């Protein structure tokens, strides 16, 4: 189970540490807000009915919004962290207005560079991983 400590520096981290889970806001108003600022206002992101007609499970969260959500998970865990790299795979859609969960775990540490590697996931209510990623973080 995740503890809720805030990481202030490299010395606060241990291999295998879990990041505190976050339930991100992927409501329609938030996805529309993201769409308005990025130009991603396509119906597949903003209209459940049209998305279902096209065979999707509903309107879906833009992949790069999911990626940004995973970055914010890292910052909630370690506010002073610098995210040097994030690599995400959009394995399956995250549905707008659902209640996904973000998780992360420390999978590698470099004492010399004071960097850590993280495995990150965004899962749906059934526990199925929809987006997965890795990140390299300097602390």
């Amino acid at each position, binding site marked *: 189970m995740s503890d809720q400590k805030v990481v202030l520096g490299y010395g606060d981290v241990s291999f295998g540490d879990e990041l505190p889970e976050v339930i*991100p806001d992927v409501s329609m108003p938030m996805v529309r807000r993201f769409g308005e600022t990025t130009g991603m206002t396509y119906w597949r992101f903003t209209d459940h009915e049209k998305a279902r007609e096209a065979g999707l499970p509903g309107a879906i969260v833009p992949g*790069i919004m999911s*990626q940004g959500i995973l970055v*914010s998970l890292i910052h909630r865990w370690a506010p002073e962290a*610098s995210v040097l790299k994030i690599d*995400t795979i959009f394995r399956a859609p995250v549905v707008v207005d659902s209640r996904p969960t973000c998780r992360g775990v420390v999978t590698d540490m470099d004492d010399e560079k004071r960097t850590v590697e993280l495995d990150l996931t965004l899962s749906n209510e059934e526990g199925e991983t929809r987006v997965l990623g890795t990140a390299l973080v300097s602390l």
Partner: protein
Amino acid sequence: MDIAELKKKWAGWTFDEVRFEIEAEPLAEFSLACGETLPRYTDPQDPNFQAAPSFAARFHGDRALPEGFPSDREASFDGGKAVDWKAPIRPGDTLIARSHIHDIFEKTGRSGGMMFIVHRMEFSNQNDEIVSIVDWKMIRKL
């Protein structure tokens, strides 16, 4: 399709160049919509205000693939994005994004062969400093 020939012909040269002027509000809105809470990403008044690390992934060039490339963008699906953060992006910056095909390779899975096209956008600021590199994997069934 000969993947090695395809890579030899199409990878490694710039086929698209786009310019972006960076303003404060879209940086903050991107961060807030992604759930960021740190003022350096959400508050334009913060002295260290800057784009969230994955911000550059939101940009597209004028073309996804070079003219004449023998595969439609529509025939492929999105395999994911990787962002290498190099330096802060701040309001007032002018970014130049140059696109090239970084790699083309093949993988064989249970459903057969798949071609991976790695589209790379390199973002430089007005000081010719690289601020971000975004790799976008496009996957197509062979």
